[in-house]
């Protein structure tokens, strides 16, 4: 763990806000954006991620997440650049609800995985494993190194009940469906996420049925 910290520190001095052009090594800390409207859960997930050597930013809502990613709805007029490197960001959904229809929907819409809460260390460790694999596989150095050098794994909390789950929010104008950014909070927020670019859903999600 100590060795990782030293390497990561050196990397971090390069890439604080700028995305550096180097391929991330396995020892570089991936940055996770965790979205959850529960303060307690934010604290727990933050610790779970930090102890697993991730860099963490926690936000309390979908709109805050978009702000953090620089996708302010005011500025963008609701239309997102589909070629944005941000679409490479894998999205993982966490929810305490085991509603199969919703789980299916999330996975179909591009979520990498659906984690049933409460989140455990083993869940986070699993994410680490596929993130490393993912960063080795993707080799897009010519198209902008943003996606590679500063990979973020966004975990989102899906709080809504099925009856609040507005189907129309998920409809996309693009061929690929939006990521499950639907989540975290009241309907007013989810509508702002409706045209968020999809994640690269390249990896098989790890849910019970596929084990």
């Amino acid at each position, binding site marked *: 763990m100590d060795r990782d910290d030293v390497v990561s520190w050196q990397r971090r001095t390069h890439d604080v806000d700028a995305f550096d052009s180097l391929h991330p090594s396995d020892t570089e800390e991936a940055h996770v954006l965790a979205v959850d*409207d*529960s*303060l*307690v*859960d934010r*604290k*727990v997930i933050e*610790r*779970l991620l930090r*102890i697993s050597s991730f860099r963490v930013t926690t936000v309390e809502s979908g709109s805050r997440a978009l702000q953090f990613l620089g996708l302010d709805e005011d500025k963008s007029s609701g239309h997102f650049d589909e070629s944005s490197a941000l679409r490479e960001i894998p999205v993982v959904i966490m929810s*305490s609800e085991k509603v199969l229809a919703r789980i299916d929907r999330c996975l179909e819409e591009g979520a990498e995985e659906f984690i049933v*809460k*409460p*989140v*455990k*260390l083993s869940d986070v460790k699993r994410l680490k494993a596929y993130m490393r694999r993912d960063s080795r596989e993707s080799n897009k150095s010519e198209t902008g190194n943003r996606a590679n050098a500063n990979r973020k794994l966004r975990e989102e909390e899906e*709080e809504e*009940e099925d*009856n*609040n789950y507005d189907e129309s929010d998920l409809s996309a104008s693009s061929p690929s469906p939006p990521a499950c950014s639907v989540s975290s909070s009241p309907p007013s927020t989810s509508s702002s996420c409706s045209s968020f670019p999809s994640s690269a859903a390249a990896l098989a999600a790890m849910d019970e049925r596929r084990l």
Partner: protein
Amino acid sequence: MEVGQMQRRLVEFTKSLFVEGFLDGQFLQLQQLQDDSNPDFVVEVVSLFFQDSEKLLNDLTSALEQQDVDFKKVDAHVHQLKGSSSSIGAQRVKNACVVFRSFCEEQNLQECMRCLQLVKQEFYLAKNKFETLFTMEQQIVAAGGSIPATEITSF
């Protein structure tokens, strides 16, 4: 009381919390997240839960006192409470919330009010148990001892 005795008491007490269903495996997860760099993690999260949820319980109480009860809102609050209690391993609180939610779905005001009372009861019971647990830990540390790790195999 000497340290060894205090430690044994703590182990027995912790065990009882699991046996009686106050705590579940998630609490063990929390303990695993505590280390020298974050020595008070468990106390911090649990305290945060009780602080945060107190407010939630107040909101729930007033929501159920409205002329026209908004059951969706009530359900959202209970869902929140269920989630955070499950995150800290407070099993009985969580279970009380599960029952509560089913009555929210039915929009049964009478039962919801009863559930609220039950949730509050479990909430304060859990708070009490945690306070006892943390006090015992503090006493051990103050006496120069270390907190024994919770052995999962014994129950």
